[in-house]
């Protein structure tokens, strides 16, 4: 008898690129955003007209308002269909890569093994025959799976094409605009906006909406959806990317016409800086979800006295095992967010390599960080002053609310089961450390708190501050870290405490001392995301103990701020004199 091994079918080709489909959705939402902004002015001018229809038709703003509503309905409909298409293409891509591809590889291997087998005895022939039949059955199942995959692709394509064709004439789009089923998302946005201070309620409300309502909200009110704590990070990312693209398009046109106002120039610079980050990480993917690594989970270019607000996550914080939030300090604005994202990436990479589970690292810049021009005594006094101000407490309250939202938006696993809470680390640097300490004092629900180069904390002990594990990085020659009250005095009295003090009770992680030269103070203050310090931070983020700790500051083991300023200043002066004399 002749045994025939069935050929293993080839894998199907992916004819639709998920990245492109995803970009189409974002682009169409941005288009809707600008049409909606245009339509809003026209509709306002159309006002409460009471004339007859021909009279209204002669009125240009009324006519334009209607025309743009029709166009908006067409693009909204296309965006919704593109979103469904992109979702399905993404699912099929994952199925092809994680299911069909490995199955085929196994079948090819089995086929080669069976083809090389010889059978001489009846028993061997019978066994081979059985194995071949089993194999051929597996090939048939695989062929059926491949066919089903192809069918699913065709169905997704058909649905998208039908949706586009249903709105590719003005008459059809008028029907979409006037459809009783068209959702008015304005009341939904008002309700969601009212839940801004209650992330869990915001999440519950979002989940109570139909997919069509969610889609309408996301497309027409991306500013609300993108900045509401408690909503899924992936949804906020979609919304904020749409807002960002809409803003960039509009301001680019205004710039071309030489019409940008001064605030608009600043907002445009913020948006461009955020876009740079989006593009820089465009080719990086989350190893867990397969989605883009970078999630833009907060974007408001005119917030905080035009400094802008940006929250960027590397990794999906709703699904990662370990999640950290990094709060940068003074001088950071939306336009300079790139440096903070780079630091965040270093932490993400280090923690990911620790192999203790998936990681998401977030940069949170949603507060008004005080601006300083350097680290002179005047500037240091300014930092000390704002560190104990109501503004610092308010920023801490906002941060605490955001962290509540992070807990609230926790996702589900592949089976729909709620994931356990993430291991959450809050990292603050400089004034961001003070803000983080205030957030902890406000009851922020974090597991670990890391304060780097902190100008001070609102309590004299870690136990009074929070139930979380508290770690402190304080370089010996970082003057900012000596602003808080310590056992040896010399601080700038402003009712805040040095968390690096032994009496504070935090674990002091090892960091480089820095250079003992006054002109290097700023560099010393900015070096916490390098070397040993970075290793310690990434270990903590990955849920491990820090790699090396040192003693806290006590009565004899550190220089006070005046001693450091005088000593390092003298050395700098001495070096300068020596250079001059030996020149």
């Amino acid at each position, binding site marked *: 008898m002749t045994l025939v091994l069935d050929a293993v079918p080839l894998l199907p080709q992916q004819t639709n690129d998920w990245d492109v489909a995803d970009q189409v959705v974002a682009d169409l939402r941005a288009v809707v955003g600008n*049409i909606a902004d245009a339509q809003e002015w026209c509709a306002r001018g159309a006002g409460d007209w009471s004339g007859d229809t021909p009279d209204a038709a002669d009125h240009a703003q009324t006519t334009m308002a209607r025309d743009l509503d029709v166009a908006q309905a067409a693009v909204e409909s296309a965006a919704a269909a593109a979103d469904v298409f992109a979702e399905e293409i993404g699912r099929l891509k994952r199925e092809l890569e994680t299911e069909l591809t490995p199955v085929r590889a196994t079948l090819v291997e089995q086929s080669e093994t069976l083809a090389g087998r010889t059978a001489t005895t009846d028993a061997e022939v019978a066994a081979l025959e059985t194995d071949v039949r089993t194999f051929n059955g597996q090939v048939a199942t695989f062929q059926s799976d491949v066919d089903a995959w192809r069918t699913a*692709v065709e169905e997704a394509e058909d649905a998208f094409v039908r949706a586009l*064709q249903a709105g590719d004439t003005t008459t059809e789009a008028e029907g979409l605009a006037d459809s009783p089923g068209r959702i008015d998302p304005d009341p939904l946005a008002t309700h969601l906006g009212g839940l801004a201070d209650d992330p869990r309620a915001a999440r519950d409300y979002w989940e109570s909406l139909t997919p069509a309502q969610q889609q309408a909200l996301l497309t027409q009110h991306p500013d609300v959806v993108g900045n509401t704590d408690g909503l899924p990070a992936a949804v906020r990312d979609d919304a904020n990317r749409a807002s960002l693209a809409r803003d960039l398009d*509009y301001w680019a046109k205004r710039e071309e016409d030489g019409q940008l106002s001064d605030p608009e120039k600043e907002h445009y610079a913020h948006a461009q800086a955020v876009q740079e980050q989006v593009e820089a990480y465009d080719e990086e993917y989350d190893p867990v979800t397969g989605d883009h690594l970078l999630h833009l989970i907060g974007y408001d270019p005119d917030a905080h006295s035009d400094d802008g607000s940006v929250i960027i996550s590397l990794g999906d914080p709703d699904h990662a095992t370990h999640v950290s939030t990094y709060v940068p300090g003074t001088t950071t604005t939306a336009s300079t967010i790139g440096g903070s994202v780079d630091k965040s990436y270093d932490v993400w990479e280090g923690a990911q390599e620790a192999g203790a589970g998936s990681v998401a690292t977030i940069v949170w810049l949603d507060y008004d960080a005080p601006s300083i021009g350097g680290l002179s005594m005047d500037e240091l006094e300014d930092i000390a002053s704002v560190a104990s101000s109501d503004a610092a407490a308010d920023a801490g309250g906002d941060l605490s609310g955001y962290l509540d939202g992070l807990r609230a938006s926790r996702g589900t696993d592949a089976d729909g089961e709620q994931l356990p809470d993430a291991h959450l680390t809050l990292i603050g640097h400089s004034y961001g450390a003070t803000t983080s300490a205030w957030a902890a004092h406000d009851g922020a629900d974090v597991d670990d708190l890391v304060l780097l180069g902190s100008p001070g904390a609102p309590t004299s002990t870690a136990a009074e501050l929070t139930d979380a594990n508290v770690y402190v990085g304080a370089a010996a020659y970082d003057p900012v870290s000596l602003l808080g009250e310590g056992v040896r005095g010399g601080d700038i009295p402003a009712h805040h405490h040095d968390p690096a003090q032994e009496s504070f009770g935090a674990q002091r992680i090892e960091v480089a001392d820095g250079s003992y030269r006054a002109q290097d103070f700023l560099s010393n203050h900015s070096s916490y995301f390098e070397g040993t310090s970075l290793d310690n931070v990434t270990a903590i983020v990955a849920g491990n103990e820090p790699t090396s700790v040192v003693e806290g500051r006590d009565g004899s083991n550190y220089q006070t701020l005046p001693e450091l300023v005088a000593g390092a200043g003298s050395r700098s002066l001495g070096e300068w004199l020596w250079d001059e004399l030996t020149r």
Partner: protein
Amino acid sequence: MGVILDVPWSVLTAARAGWDDTGDHLTAATNRLDDVGANGGFAPVVSGALSSWRAHWLSYLGDRVDTCEGASSALAAAMLSYEYADAEAAEHARSLMPYAYREADVHASQDAPPPDPADGPSAWPSGEQATPEPAP
């Protein structure tokens, strides 16, 4: 002798700015729409449908951009002299104003002097977005 449209200067300037801004938003929208799915990445059946859809709406929005730019230019010209060549031109400008001014009076220019240029660009209290006043 020209024709005057009896609307406050601030309404005229706000309307011009509004049409200009609307045109900017629509240009921004068409610039992005022009690129939507235009660089491949889809099966031919999807690309074809997307291309047809995009072409229609690019043309549709492009026409509205022209309308906005035309309206903005017409009002900008009116702002220079504050008078119109004839009643038809004044009525056209009136149709570009907020609906509350749909019955604003059109009359010969000797009835009311134009704003004094010495008073600056606006003879009325200025504001980026004027509050519509009741139609006369």
